[in-house]
């Protein structure tokens, strides 16, 4: 009993130099742990990726899977190399459709959300229509758009827009509406007018939610552009997929899928970078946690 007490006293009064050592050691350990976490966040997925591709390569060769069913990765890579110019050309066209459809979603969606928020009768009138527009299967509308707008760029952009604008509208409207009452009271007591309140407080308050909507929207825009090209394409990666499919060139088909995936990741990355520039860091993590699940 008395022994324990004595040990306790000894521990309670260590000499300052050793405390400093402990601090330094713990700090070093923390920095090391953070570093290894950062590295493993890149290395682990890369390893899994390499392992999967390796397994695919091995399996398709060992089991002699016909190449029109499942070409091994090396063959896909060779095909992509061979058709590099074609892939780049079609990617650019599809990118233009995705980009324009996405921009149109913002240009139409954000003001629409503003109107829904600022003018309740308008919200009541438009909401059911908005929901209904999402109930219509967009793929089914695609042929109609071809009849109306021909085979050029426009119908693809419109289909991409039609699929992509809904999350923009909804997330913007929800972001604007979800504000603490006290923030509005505060603005009133500071003599801020409705316009200034909107731009100084409501809109920045809604930005995390808006960006969550934009991230969903950009991935949908990719889907929309490809659907448009499937139905009435004379070019673009969607058209390339159909052609490759028709000529049983499965390696090129895979190449098109890889290119499309790459496009989707790049577009998503662009939005994420812009978000990072616009929002303070903690808001991004909060948004990815809470709002993106919607």
């Amino acid at each position, binding site marked *: 009993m008395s022994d324990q007490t004595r040990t306790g006293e000894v521990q309670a009064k260590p000499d300052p130099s050793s405390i400093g050592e402990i601090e330094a050691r713990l700090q070093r350990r923390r920095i090391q742990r953070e570093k290894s976490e950062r590295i493993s966040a890149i290395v682990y997925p890369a390893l899994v990726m390499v392992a999967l591709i390796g397994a695919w390569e091995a399996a398709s060769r060992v089991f002699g899977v016909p190449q029109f069913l499942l070409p091994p990765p090396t063959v896909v890579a060779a095909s992509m190399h061979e058709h590099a110019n074609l892939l780049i050309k079609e990617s650019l066209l599809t990118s233009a459709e995705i980009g324009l459809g996405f921009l149109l979603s913002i240009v139409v969606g954000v003001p629409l959300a503003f109107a829904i928020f600022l003018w309740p009768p308008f919200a009541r009138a438009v909401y059911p229509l908005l929901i209904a527009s999402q109930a219509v299967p967009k793929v089914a509308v695609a042929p109609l758009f071809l009849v109306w707008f021909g085979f050029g760029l426009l119908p693809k952009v419109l289909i991409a827009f039609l699929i992509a604008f809904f999350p923009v509208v909804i997330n913007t409207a929800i972001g604007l509406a979800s504000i603490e009452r006290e923030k509005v*009271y*505060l603005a*009133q*007591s*500071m*003599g801020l007018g409705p316009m*200034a309140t909107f731009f*100084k407080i409501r809109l920045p308050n809604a*930005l995390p939610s808006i960006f969550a909507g934009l991230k969903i929207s950009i991935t949908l825009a990719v889907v929309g552009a490809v659907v448009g090209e499937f139905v009435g394409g004379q070019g673009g990666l969607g058209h390339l997929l159909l052609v490759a499919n028709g000529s049983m060139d499965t390696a090129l088909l895979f190449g098109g899928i890889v290119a499309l995936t790459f496009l989707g990741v790049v577009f998503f990355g662009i939005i994420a970078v812009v978000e990072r520039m616009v929002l303070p860091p*903690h808001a991004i993590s909060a948004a990815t946690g809470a709002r993106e699940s919607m």
Partner: protein
Amino acid sequence: MELAVAPPMDSGQVRAGGELADSYLDVRDLTKIYATRDGVVRALDRVSLTAKRGEFLSILGPSGCGKSTLLMIAAGLIPGSSGEIRIAGQKIDRPRTDIGIVFQSPVLLEWRTALGNVMLQAEARKMEHKAALKRARELLASVGLSDFENKYPHELSGGMRQRVSICRSLIHSPDQLLMDEPFGALDSLTRDQLVLDLQQLWMKQRMTVLFITHSVAEAVFLSDRVVVMSPRPGRIDRVIEIDLPRPRTLAMRESPEFADYSRQIMELFLARGVLNEHPGGKAE
């Protein structure tokens, strides 16, 4: 034990402060009714009170006595159902902009730094930037936040956030400071510090303060007068003048005078059933 306390007085018989010629805040027969799905709720029932310019007035009462509602109406943010509030003779019928307001939560903008949040008030009022910046820094320094000017709200503790909120409410030197249970969400040590900070700010600036609280100690410590409210429907029960020298110190809370004020209020709460003792240790 019978407590010698008079029943709550009715329909504006109590006029806190009486008919003062120099009254700044003048509340007359203010009633607030909420029409809810479950029927009507009388939040305030013919409340009348006055406050002098420069006075520190606390409204003390249990949850649901309508004290926050009173503050919101005094700020012009929500309308009363009947009766009126005048500020310097002027009837309030729209949100007031001559005030500083502090809520229970700090209500800071997450995308602005501590300094940026204080400056929001200055920007909204189009104050001269340089002078406002200097004053914002002074205010933050006076509550010990000099080193935290450039921190974002999520990097600050709860007490620090509320201090930023108080600085924001004072940068434009408002005539009146309205505080709605500003320290209610803080731990007791932080609360003591902020009470001291607030007293110091008030003694320097001498703005009229309307302070809503459910803490007896806070109310007695800070106030010139304490308005004790009775619950549901919210009425003024008693107005207690606190005659203690300033600046008040934490040690003063242990003084017999302080204890006497606290006891008066406690007895009111006991008599109204806000607090219930279990005599003879029979509590299970």
